C-alpha cells in the first residue's frame, strides 16, 4: 500500500509540476499577480510529493521489501544498513528519483527565497524549473518506475554491485547531483531572463550564489568520485578520462567559466549574452551527461539501438530543452542590451580570456567523448579516443589559462596594467622559478614535468595570496594592522584566493604523480619489498568472512628504515551473491603522500602484489576541497548574505533599496 502511495505521489508531483510550469508563465504574460503567486506554493508542493516518494523507496530498501522489483534487483537482506540506504540511488531508477528530488529541492529553495528575487523573475524561473521537472517525472513514470512490484515476491534480493558497496557511494552521487542539477536553476534563471527580455546586474547578482553553490558541490562530487575510484579500483589511477567522468567534467568546466563570467556581468554589466549562453550550455552538458550514461550509447551505437526506450526518451528531453533554449536564445538575445565596453587588458579582459580557454577545453572533451560515436554512426569506422589523446590535447589548453590566473586576479577592472601586475607578482614568479630550478637540480634525471608542474602550482598559490598581501600590507603597515585589514577584506576576495590556491594544490598533486613509483612482484609471507623510501614486509595471508562476502586479508608491516610505522591490510574479496571479486587497496598515509598496496592472483603460496608510493597525491583532492571551500566562502559574502529563508524573518525594508540576496541552497 505504502509503495503504491509513493508511486501515486510521483504522479501527483507530475500534475503539480505542470501547474508550476503553466500558471506562473500565464501570470507573467497577463500580469496577474495571483497567478504569479502560484509558482512558489506549487514548487513546494512538488518537492513535498517527491520527497515523500523518495522516502517510501528508502523505506522499502531499509526494510528489504522484496515485493518491489527495484529492491530485489539491488539489495540483499544481509547487506550492511548504510548500503541499504545508499543502494536507493545505486541503480538507474533510484538515481533518477534522486535526480528529480534534487531538482525539486532547488525549486523549493528558490520558492522560499522570497525577499531575494523580483516576483516576475522568480515566477518565470520556477516555471522553467517546473518544465524540467515535468520532463523527468514523465521519464521516470513512463520508462523507469522505481515502484514496480514483483509477484510472487522472492525470499532474497540479488544484492548491490559490490563496487558500489562503499561509503563513497553514500556521499558521491548526492554531492555530484546537487552540483549537476544545481545548474538547472542557473538555466532556469537564464530562460526567465530571455522570456522577459530583461537582464541586468540584479539578475547577475541573483544567479551568482546558485551558480557558486552548484559549482562547489560539483567540485566536491567529482573529487569524491575520483578518490573513490582511486582506492576502490586498486590500480592506483585517479582519473581515467572515461566518458562517464568526462560527462561530469564538462559541466564543471562550463560552470567554472560561468562563475567567472557572472562576475563580469555583475561588476561591469558586460558579457550578458555570453553569460546567458553559458548558463544554457552548462545545463545542456548536464543533460547530455545524463543521456550518455543513461541511454547505453556509450557501450556502442548498437547497444543503444537494441533497447532504445530510455535512450530515445532522454534524447527527446535533450532535444526539447537544448533546442528550445537555444532557439529562445537566438530569438530573444538580440533584445538584450549590450553592456559597457572594455579594454582588452583589464580584469574583465582576463576573465574573457579565461572563458575562451575553458570553452575550448570543454569543446575538446566534448568532441573527444562523442567523436567515436558520431564517426561510427556516420561511417561505421571504429576508433578509440582515450586517456593518451586527452592528456596530449588538454594540457596545452589548461596550462596557459592556469598561468594567467594570478595575473587576472591582480588586474584592475576597466583598465589594467600588465607590467604593473607583473611587477607585483615578481616575488611569486621568482619563488616559483626558484622552486622549479631547485627541484630540477635535486631530481636530476627524473621526470621534468613534475618540477615544472609544481612550479606552476606554487605560482598559483603564491599569486592567489599576493592579492591579500598587496591589498592589506601596503609598505610600512605593521603586522597587526595588516592582519586586521586582511581579515576585513570582502569574503568574496578570500573566496577567490582560496579557490585559486586550491587549484594550485591540485596542480601540485597531479604534477607530483610523475614521481610515483610502482612495483609489481610475487611475494610470500616474510618477503620484503622497498616502496618509495619505505619497506613493506608481507606478514600473513588470512581468510576472513564479512557480512556478505569472503575475503583474504594480506597484512603488511611498513617500516621506515628500522622504525615500525604500523600494519596495513589489503584485501581480495569475493561477494557471494553475485560471485564477483573486488580488491580493497591497503593505503597508509604519510603526510599528504601515500603508500598504496593491492593484491592480485595467488599461486602456490605467493601473491601477486602491486606496491605504489604516491608522493603528495592527497593534494589532488585536498585542493578540490579547498576550491569548494573558496566557493562557500564567496557565498557568505555580504552581498549575498541572507538570513534564514523568509519564514523565520518577516519582511524588512531593504537597506538603500538594495536587493537582498539569495540564500545559499540548502545543503
Amino acid at each position: 500500500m505504502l509503495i503504491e502511495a509513493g508511486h501515486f505521489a510521483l504522479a501527483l508531483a507530475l500534475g503539480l509540476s505542470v501547474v508550476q510550469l503553466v500558471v506562473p508563465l500565464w501570470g507573467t504574460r497577463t500580469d496577474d499577480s495571483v497567478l504569479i503567486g502560484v509558482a512558489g506554493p506549487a514548487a513546494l508542493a512538488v518537492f513535498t510529493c517527491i520527497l515523500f516518494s523518495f522516502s517510501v523507496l528508502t523505506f522499502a530498501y531499509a526494510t528489504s521489501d522484496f515485493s518491489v522489483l527495484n529492491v530485489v534487483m539491488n539489495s540483499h537482506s544481509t547487506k550492511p544498513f548504510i548500503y541499504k540506504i545508499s543502494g536507493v540511488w545505486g541503480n538507474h531508477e533510484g538515481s533518477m528519483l534522486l535526480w528529480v528530488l534534487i531538482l525539486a529541492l532547488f525549486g523549493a529553495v528558490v520558492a522560499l527565497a522570497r525577499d531575494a528575487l523580483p516576483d516576475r523573475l522568480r515566477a518565470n524561473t520556477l516555471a522553467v524549473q517546473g518544465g524540467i521537472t515535468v520532463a523527468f517525472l514523465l521519464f521516470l513514470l513512463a520508462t523507469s518506475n522505481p515502484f514496480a512490484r514483483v509477484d510472487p515476491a522472492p525470499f532474497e534480493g540479488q544484492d548491490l554491485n559490490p563496487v558500489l558497496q562503499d561509503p563513497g557511494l553514500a556521499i558521491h552521487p548526492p554531492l555530484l547531483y546537487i552540483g549537476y542539477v544545481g545548474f538547472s536553476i542557473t538555466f532556469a534563471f537564464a530562460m526567465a531572463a530571455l522570456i522577459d527580455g530583461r537582464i541586468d546586474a540584479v539578475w547577475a547578482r541573483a544567479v551568482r550564489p546558485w551558480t557558486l553553490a552548484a559549482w562547489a558541490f560539483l567540485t566536491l562530487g567529482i573529487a569524491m568520485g575520483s578518490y573513490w575510484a582511486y582506492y576502490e579500483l586498486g590500480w592506483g589511477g585517479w582519473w581515467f578520462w572515461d566518458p562517464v567522468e568526462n560527462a561530469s567534467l564538462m559541466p564543471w568546466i562550463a560552470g567554472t567559466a560561468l562563475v567567472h563570467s557572472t562576475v563580469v556581468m555583475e561588476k561591469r554589466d558586460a558579457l550578458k549574452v555570453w553569460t546567458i549562453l553559458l548558463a544554457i550550455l552548462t545545463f545542456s552538458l548536464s543533460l547530455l551527461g545524463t543521456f550518455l550514461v543513461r541511454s547505453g550509447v556509450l557501450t556502442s551505437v548498437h547497444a543503444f539501438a537494441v533497447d532504445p526506450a530510455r535512450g530515445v526518451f532522454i534524447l527527446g528531453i535533450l532535444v526539447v530543452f537544448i533546442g528550445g533554449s537555444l532557439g529562445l536564445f537566438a530569438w530573444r538575445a538580440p533584445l538584450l542590451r549590450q553592456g559597457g565596453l572594455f579594454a582588452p587588458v583589464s580584469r574583465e579582459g582576463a576573465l574573457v580570456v579565461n572563458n575562451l580557454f575553458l570553452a575550448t577545453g570543454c569543446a575538446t572533451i566534448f568532441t573527444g567523448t562523442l567523436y567515436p560515436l558520431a564517426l561510427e554512426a556516420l561511417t561505421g569506422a571504429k576508433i578509440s579516443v582515450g586517456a593518451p589523446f586527452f592528456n596530449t590535447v588538454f594540457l596545452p589548453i589548461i596550462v596557459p589559462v592556469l598561468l594567467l590566473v594570478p595575473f587576472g586576479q591582480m588586474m584592475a577592472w576597466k583598465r589594467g596594467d600588465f607590467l604593473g601586475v607583473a611587477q607585483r607578482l615578481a616575488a611569486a614568479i621568482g619563488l616559483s622559478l626558484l622552486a622549479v630550478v631547485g627541484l630540477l637540480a635535486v631530481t636530476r634525471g627524473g621526470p621534468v614535468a613534475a618540477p615544472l608542474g609544481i612550479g606552476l602550482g606554487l605560482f598559483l598559490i603564491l599569486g592567489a595570496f599576493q592579492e591579500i598581501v598587496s591589498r592589506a600590507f601596503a609598505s610600512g603597515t605593521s603586522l597587526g594592522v595588516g592582519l586586521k585589514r586582511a581579515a576585513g577584506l570582502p569574503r568574496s576576495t578570500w573566496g577567490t584566493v582560496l579557490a585559486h590556491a586550491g587549484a594550485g594544490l591540485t596542480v601540485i598533486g597531479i604534477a607530483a604523480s610523475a614521481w610515483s613509483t610502482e612495483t609489481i612482484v610475487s611475494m610470500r609471507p616474510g618477503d620484503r619489498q622497498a616502496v618509495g623510501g619505505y619497506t613493506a614486509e608481507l606478514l600473513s595471508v588470512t581468510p576472513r568472512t564479512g557480512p556478505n562476502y569472503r575475503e583474504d586479508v594480506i597484512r603488511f608491516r611498513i617500516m621506515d628504515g628500522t622504525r615500525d610505522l604500523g600494519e596495513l591490510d589489503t584485501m581480495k574479496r569475493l561477494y557471494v551473491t553475485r560471485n564477483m571479486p573486488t580488491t580493497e587497496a591497503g593505503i597508509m598515509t604519510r603526510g599528504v603522500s601515500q603508500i598504496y598496496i593491492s593484491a592480485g592472483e595467488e599461486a602456490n603460496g605467493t601473491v601477486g602484489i602491486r606496491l605504489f608510493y604516491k608522493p603528495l597525491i592527497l593534494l589532488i583532492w585536498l585542493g578540490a576541497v579547498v576550491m569548494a571551500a573558496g566557493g562557500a566562502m564567496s557565498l557568505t559574502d555580504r552581498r549575498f548574505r541572507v538570513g534564514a529563508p523568509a519564514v523565520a524573518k518577516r519582511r524588512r525594508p531593504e537597506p538603500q533599496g538594495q536587493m537582498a540576496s539569495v540564500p545559499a541552497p540548502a545543503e
Partner: protein
Amino acid sequence: MGSLPRIGLALLLLATPLASAHAVQPDEILRDPAMERRARDISSGLRCLVCQNQSIDDSDAPLAKDLRVLVRERLTSGDSDAQVRDFLVQRYGEFVLLKPPFSLHTVWLWLTPLAVFGAGALGLALTLRRRRTPAVAALTPDEQARLDALLRESGRA
C-alpha cells in the same frame, strides 16, 4: 570488461571506470627494466578490445593479458615501439589505438581545440573592434546639425 559487468549503466554519472584489480602480473614483467618501461608505455596506449575505455595495461581481461605478452614478445625480438604498434594496428585495426592518428576521418577530432579557440579569439577580436568603433565614431550629419543648433542657441543665450 574483466570480471565486473558495466556499472556505467547502473549508476548515473558516477565517475567510475569499470572493472577492478589487477592488470600486469609479476610473471609478465620483462627482466630488462628499460624494455619493461617501453612495454608499459606502449600498453597504456593500446585499447583492451573487449573493455570499455581501458588500456591493456589497466585491464585484467584475458585478452588484455595476451596482448601485453604479445607486446613484450615483439619487443624482446627486437621490434621498435612503432613497429609493435603497427603490428597491432594491422591485426586489430585503428580501434586498438587510444590516441587515434591524425588522418582524414579524425581531422575534426584533432582540430576542434584549434578551431574553437580560433573562432572564439576571432569573434572576440571582432566584437572588441566593433564595440570600440561606435564609441569613437563621429556624429552623424543629423546629430552634428542638432548639436550645432544647440550650441548656437546656448551661445546666443
